[in-house]
């Protein structure tokens, strides 16, 4: 999976925001927590949910099941707005 090309990840003032181009059906702005920012950064390259969880384990000091749950939640939210190409 990968971030859809009609969504631009932008870091402003240390905060990650996801902004759709004029082509995307979704017209809002996504501002997220650190988990979402890290997931979005990883989605710039082709990856899988498992690979994202593995990468996040090295960054965040939390049990794997918590990280897996948060990653799934972030991906579900991104899928809903069409921001992820499977």
């Amino acid at each position, binding site marked *: 999976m990968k971030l859809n090309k*009609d969504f*631009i990840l932008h870091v*402003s*003032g240390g*905060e990650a925001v996801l*902004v*759709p*181009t*004029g082509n995307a059906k979704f017209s809002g*702005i996504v501002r997220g927590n650190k988990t979402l920012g890290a997931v979005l950064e990883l989605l710039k390259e082709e990856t899988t949910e498992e690979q994202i969880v593995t990468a996040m384990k090295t960054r965040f000091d939390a049990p794997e099941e918590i990280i897996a749950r948060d990653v799934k939640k972030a991906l579900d939210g991104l899928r809903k707005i069409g921001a992820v190409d499977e």
Partner: protein
Amino acid sequence: MDQIYKIADTLIRISPINPKIVTICKEYCVVSTHYAFEIKTSPSDIAFERCKSAREDEAEGHPVRQFSDAYLETLAVYRKIAEKMPEYDTVLFHGSCVAVDGVGYLFTAKSGTGKSTHTRLWRQLLGERAVMVNDDKPLIRMTDGGAIIYGTPWDGKHHLSANIAVPLKVVCILTRANENTIRPLTVSEAYPMLLQQVYRPMDPAAMAKTLSLVDRLAASVRLWKLGCNMEIEAAQVAYEAMKGSL
């Protein structure tokens, strides 16, 4: 009908189908042998605008409005200009801009909030000192010296604009309220609204450039939030607070 126009200090050749473009842009027409880029429209561009407008009406639960090809072509031309302008460090921004003593104050809010009503109050309050730059869709260029805001021919239903450029010093997010109150905003507080109100290009590279231009804009102006009613006091409260901060 091909003509060259100087819009936001950029020479643009426009080759329209309908003469309405020539009429609305006539004050911006220049004689030149060169230009930065060319805009050509086709019937499919007009069909795209008709379809987009209908979708927006449906999404808002309104009856679908019918527009002439000539009007829809004006939208298509400005969309094409807005798609290109990030290359020239320039973005289209939805808002009503008034200049007072040569300084630009830009009010932004969702459609129907009362941007135009508020800048009309500024003209009532300040008389000839207040000049409308553009009532709806000005262009903003980011320079090393700060933001410059330009009048454009796309100036809203009351057609209030002037072919002028002024330094933009203030961006104010406007909301309706019973009492008039104003407070400064941080960049983080204002940022979502700035991103909602700037034109978002369809091209991902132009969109990425737009985001960097919005960052520069947010860093170079004073940001405010105004809760206002439609009394002249709203303009007094806003002007005095903002002017005092410059």
